């Protein structure tokens, strides 16, 4: 046992516990908090892998922004405890067996074929400088494209979430002016 492994296991345990808790909880806000825990734990794993910038971004973007949005939505819609409806037999008849089969297969492949080659702690310097240089040189085009994507997402979110126009039903909205 070494420090690296211990830390990995500790963070991993948090992540696993969070993931399971996400499934077990019936109230969405608990699930959301579990997910935040998972994300924080993953940020720790990133740090172990040397991706310190990514860890920070993980916390800021995922935990600090995306999940805040989730919590915000839950609060806004006042989401209650989950109802236990039986809407889908398919999900249980095909989905769960498929999931189990897939997990087993994937686990088998990973354990059998990836070997036991160790990954050193902080093996790769993921500091802001190198990431930035990669991002703004090699991946400049995808970067710009994602910015457009985000712009579109902003507009889409505004349009979707804004209240529908208050003209009487059946009468098409008329453009004014």
């Amino acid at each position, binding site marked *: 046992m070494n420090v690296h492994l211990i830390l990995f296991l500790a963070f991993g345990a948090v992540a696993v516990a969070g993931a399971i808790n996400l499934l077990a909880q019936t109230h969405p806000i608990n699930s959301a908090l579990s997910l935040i825990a998972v994300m924080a734990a993953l940020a720790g794993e990133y740090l172990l892998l040397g991706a310190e910038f990514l860890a920070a971004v993980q916390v800021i973007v995922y935990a600090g922004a995306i999940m805040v949005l989730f919590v915000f939505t839950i609060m806004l819609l006042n989401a209650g405890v989950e109802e236990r409806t039986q809407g889908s037999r398919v*999900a249980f*008849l095909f989905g769960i067996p498929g*999931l189990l089969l897939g997990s087993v*297969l994937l686990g*088998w492949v990973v354990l059998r074929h990836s070997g036991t080659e160790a990954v050193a702690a902080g093996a790769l310097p993921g500091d802001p400088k190198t990431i930035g240089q990669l991002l703004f040189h090699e991946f400049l085009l995808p970067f710009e494209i994602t910015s457009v994507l985000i712009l579109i997402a902003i507009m889409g979110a505004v349009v979707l979430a804004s209240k529908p126009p208050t003209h009487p039903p059946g009468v098409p909205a008329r453009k004014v002016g």
Partner: protein
Amino acid sequence: MTSSLNLWLIPVLPLAGAAINGFLGKKSSRTAVSVIGLFFSGAAFAWALSVVMRVSSDALPYHEYIAHWIRFGSAGLPGSFSSDFALYLDQLSLVMLLIVTGVGFLIHIYSVGYMWDDPSYYRFFAYLNLFKFFMLTLVLANNYLLMFIGWEGVGLASYLLIGFWFTKDSAASAGKKAFIVNRIGDFGFLIALFLIIQHFGSLDFTKVFAQVQPLAAETAGAGLLTAIGILLMVGACGKSAQIPLYVWLPDAMEGPTPVSALIHAATMVTAGVYMVSRSHMIFERAPMALMVVAVIGTLTALFAATIGIVQTDIKKVLAYSTVSQLGYMFMACGVGAFSAGIFHLMTHAFFKGLLFLAAGSVIHAVGGEQDMRKMGGLRSYIPITAATMGIATLAIAGIFPFAGFWSKDEILWKAYQANWVYWFIGLVTAFVTSFYMFRLLFMTFAGDYRGGAHADEHGRGTHGHDHGHGEPHESPMVMLVPLMILAVLSVVGGLVGIGNGFEHFLAPVFGSGEVAGAAGEAASRGTEILLMVVSVTVALLGAMLAYVLYVSKPYLPQKIADGLNGFYTAVLNKYYIDELYAKLFVKPLIDGSTSILWQGVDRKIIDDTVNNAADGARQVSDEVRHMQSGNLRSYAGWIAAGSAVVLAYMIWMGVR
């Protein structure tokens, strides 16, 4: 080779006219359409004339290369083949060129008057110019393939023009009939072309003939050249309306009369004769094929002439007459007298074109009536037409010294030299021809007018315009001038044959063999003159018989008809050939198509396949659509299961 003659302009000018009129004519005035149609047609004629002026006979044959067309394989190697857009001019094509452009131009002028009131005036001129383009392509082509393009193109134009009044059922079906019957002939032509490609590796006239020339004549039995020759003759039979494929031509009279004159008398139907003459190198080395040509020609000549006796429709008479005259030309070709055939082709173009145009003028005069029994006595109403038609009749009957005399006697003389049976049948045909032509003349112009006021009812019958008159009247000058020009040509056109002048002119094409034979002719000059006298006498006899029957004793024909009851009916029904074809070919085809192709293949196999596929798709979808329940988690379930399967497959493929 002289400097370029720009031959390509000759076919392209009418094409331009056709394009302009066809695409823009609908919006243009009739005057504009006429001007364009006449200009391009006339320009082609003028250019053809200028070519004649500029070319010297020792510069012929003249080749003109225009563009690449089909090329594969490297030239010279076996298996390679090439065919270009290239033109070829020799004495033979020169004659055809002048006939097509000249007579065509006259008929264009005539059409302006004849078609003036037709609502599709522009369409007529577009088609007519298109026809000229294809006909000139046919005539000027330097290889069989380009010739075939023209050959098919004139077929198309013919189809379009026969069915010009396509709203009339009989016109539409006549067009189809012409097209289909021609396809049968084209089938033979095509196979002949394939044989030529296979054995000679080219379709260029010069290359093919250069390879044919050293071959020995297939006297002993049928060989390759015989096969090619007979197949070419099949093609010619279709285009030139010979037994057994003549049936379309009488029906083609449903088209406007100028069309009948141009396409179905003067030019297109003679394409077969031109093609056989052009292939004389092959036929000369295949005596059996030549015999087939001669026999078919002779039989057709007599056969069609006999039908012509009893026809009452003025254009039908002329149609059968055309078939008969074409038979003469083939007879000439069949006995190896190609130049005589071409000579007759030329004179025939003059007088038959004139006959048709005059007939059109008559029809025009009586307001669309075509039945000769309702005419009569028109001489006083339309003297110019009557006069020109009389000249044409004299010409076709072979009365000295009209054009038909020279060419027909040339043919009869050559036939006599080959085999007296041909001559004898030809002579009988000449008699019959003379009889029915004078019958036509007398029924139309002599006696009293039998039409009367009710002619109005037929006003729109065939040529689509109605003057609303009771009195027959003379046609406008624009129609009469071409009549007169052609009449002059019908009188003097045969004079070029005096002293074998025409034959000498064509000698470079058909070889000196014929001319050499002509040297020996001098000895039998007396026989020739005797034969001339006999044929003229026979023609006069026919004319007299017609006079007796239709002018002096008009009650006799009915008596004779009653006396020859069965035979008369058979002749009146054109020997039931159409019915026979209907029984033998058309009905089995229709029945077969109905029961096997339509009900069997199309309905049972194709339709059922499509319908069952659609039904199956719908049934499967009906089941599968339950998968799309709208429930998000079900979708997730399918995705999870599906991805597990994909994963398993990938692992299985990877691990294996």
